[in-house]
């Protein structure tokens, strides 16, 4: 049966009615109209849908909305805006770190989680943190450079994790 859930997303509470097993991805995209998390595989294999729940990267395409209601959800919209991007987002812009950009939101969320637990990662640690994320355009090296650039800029992302 559809159930009423209260989700805390980017610091704001939202009420949504959905089947408990509905993947969080569709609630974020269709009910909350957030574009950042992308549908890529629906099987937690590519990382395009990654968001943070209580600071931990989760694949929203397989994460039931019923479980998400317990935590604090951060999507890329919670980091910064096109006008006022966070330091991490600025680093991605600086490095022109994509081609199509479809995987970028998930990459940035994974990097956000990494930098929160390890503010000065090595190149190998960045790659390890992103290993479960797929990029088809071949922008990997730019993405790694962007994360390292952000880490060197004494990262304190604007409007980041509440």
């Amino acid at each position, binding site marked *: 049966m559809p159930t009423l859930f209260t989700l805390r997303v980017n610091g704001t509470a939202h009420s949504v009615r*959905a*089947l408990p097993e*509905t*993947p969080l991805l*569709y609630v974020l*995209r*269709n009910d909350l*109209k*957030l*574009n*950042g998390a*992308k*549908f*890529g*595989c*629906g*099987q937690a*294999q*590519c990382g*395009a849908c990654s968001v943070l729940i209580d600071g931990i990267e989760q694949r929203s395409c397989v994460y039931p909305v019923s479980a998400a209601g317990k935590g604090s959800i951060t*999507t*890329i*919209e919670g*980091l*910064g*805006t*096109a006008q006022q*991007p966070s330091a991490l*987002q600025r680093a*991605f*812009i600086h490095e*022109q770190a*994509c*081609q*199509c*950009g*479809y*995987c*970028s*939101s998930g990459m*940035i969320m994974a990097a956000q989680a990494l930098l929160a637990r390890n503010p000065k990662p090595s190149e190998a640690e*960045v*790659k*390890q943190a*992103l*290993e479960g*994320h*797929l*990029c*088809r*355009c*071949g*922008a*990997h*090296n*730019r*993405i*790694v450079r962007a994360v390292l650039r952000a880490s060197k800029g004494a990262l304190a992302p604007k409007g980041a994790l509440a």
Partner: protein
Amino acid sequence: MTAALRNVSRRDLLKAGTGLVVGIVFAPSLGLAQGTETPAHLPGSLNGNRLLSAWLRVDPNGTVTVFTGKVEFGQGIASALAQVAADELDVGYQRINMVTADTSRTPDEGFTAGSQSIEHSGTAIRFACAEARQILLAAAAVKLGVEAADLTVVDGTIAARGGKHTTYWAVTTDAMLRREATPNLKPKSADEYRLIGQNLARRDLPPKFTGGAAYLQDLRLAGMVHARIGRPPVPRAELVSLDAAALKAMPGVIEVVRDGSFVAVVCEREEQAINARMALRERAVWSRPELPPTLADTFDRPDPELQTQDSVVYEKTAPSASVAVRQIEARYTRAFQLHASIGPSCAVAHSTDGKLTVWTHSQGVFALRGDIARALGVAPASVTCIHMEGAGCYGHNGADDAAFDAALLARAVPGRPVRVQWMRDDEFMWEPFGSAMSVKVRAGLSADGNIVDWQHELWSYPHARRPGGRDGVNLLAAAYLAHPLQPAFPADVPQPNGGSDRNSIPLYDFPNQKILKHYMPDAPLRTSSLRTLGAYANVFAIESLMDETAAAAGADPVEFRLRHLRDERARTVIETAARNSGWQPSALGDGGRGTGSTLRGRGIGFARYKNHACYCAVVAEVEVDPMGGIVRVTRAWSAVDAGLAINPDGIVNQIEGGLIQSASWTLKEAVKIDRSGIQTKSWIDYPILRFSEVPAVEVEVIQRPTEDSLGVGEGAQGPTGAAIANAFAAATGRRLRDIPFMPDRVKAALA
């Protein structure tokens, strides 16, 4: 005063004043309409879309809207074209608004394919903007009472000596650009560029990195419903029975649409559509035709068993050339491979008042519109196809098919926009594949160590099955309808671009050459354009055999290539890549030990894409783990000459990305096919290169300001595959001739 200005009438100039923003007028063949004489040739896509107003509009609000028939799919083309327009007009980059492929608004520039957007659209925009600048200056000259030659422009502000000034925005009129472009107009010369050649930041990235609405997938229309398709379990299967009533009773299901063996569910919510699709799969009963064997199964069989159309692509003979004293021959193959976009195909369609609007990430909205109209039996004018970005596509993926799916469903639920999202297995099983290929090459070596004879024989399925064929409908669902519509005959792309034979003619100066094509239009699987078409396999074969022949001649691979190349630009990219990599001349390339028990080697590959686009050389360094049969590309260097580089960093991004993608194809990628169907359904079945496997890449762009810009998007693909194979040979002394270089093949080669 130039020729262009002489054509501007006095009346046009006097009408200069505050402009109105109006739609553009189409007169794609204005010149022809005036009589039977052939109109003068205009540069790039201007030739087919001759009105200046088709390309740009100068708005009184201080912006310039530039229209292109090309589409953005992550290659940065919209930003590069804006850069061209801003430079030619002398306005700020941020003043340019780009409108990309829309059948109701932009010029028809065919497909965004073949690395031609800068050559086609960039050239058109450059000349159209240069002429618009002259027209605006002429109007300003009248207004200010000075000579146009005495005017200067800075960011759209036009100033005369002595302080008088006006702006583009003040003198523009809607009528001003509604005229045909002038032949022989001269745009800026290389020394006048301000923005061209600069690494301007792409304008589409800030929204993409912040959750902005940047993709078709982000389009949300009022009343929009969600659909999923119930594709057959295997190509050519027929839907025998389906309990549609049971599906229709599921929560949120608005409609179960069935037309022959095309079936889909349309639901209020997306997750409902996904659930209904799962139920559909469980309930639908399909016929189970066996898949016939493919070329990939017959690589080892005698060639005459294959049904082929044979033709000579190219032949040249020089009876005076030295006699070959030694023949080096090998066969190279490539598996079926996938575009494997990160975002599965998506489309939105809306049918209302007899009009159909389709939002699509197709690479060719005009051809798509034509095929949709033909399939639905409606006038093309009643269909509008609007491009919006999807994930990177790398060729003809499922985008057009998803658009037709959406069109069929929009017709079934008129009044409500229908969003179709393919699931991951839809994309992997139903996107058109890159064709498996087999290439046999033989080099004849003279006594003095030169190649005097070169024979290249290739076998391939089609590489061009996009919409727009003359005698059929090239949309997946069409063949499954109750009244099926068959696809058009898949003719191969003719030279000089070539399809299966793309890049089959080596750029080297071999006195005797013959290229023979065995084309197989009757493919058991749907194959179509995957980045570079046949060039990837052809260059892999040519450049591998170049190394095998160099080894037979006891020559260094770099020196051996240069020995056979007169084209200075080709030589330069090879020399540059070799120098940047610290190439050590020796018969075996770099050789040497890697870390631990691994073997390390370097190899080079080169091609000029399509023999008329960018020049690209790649040096790859590999480490081979003989026990595990693992080949890793650890580093790569590339040098590229794309003539005038509009945005060098954009070129670096394309070459580096293409190199990494090609490394992934070469090391890992093959569609799994057996008699019961396509077995590649998820990323588990089709691994691609991951972060830990990606090489460090250095790209040098050789800027040539006075040369024409050359297409670059596919330049690295062919050379990379060969460079990896050659590096493996340098490391191990053995050859890998079958792509991909899976561990079992590696172990077999080393046994």
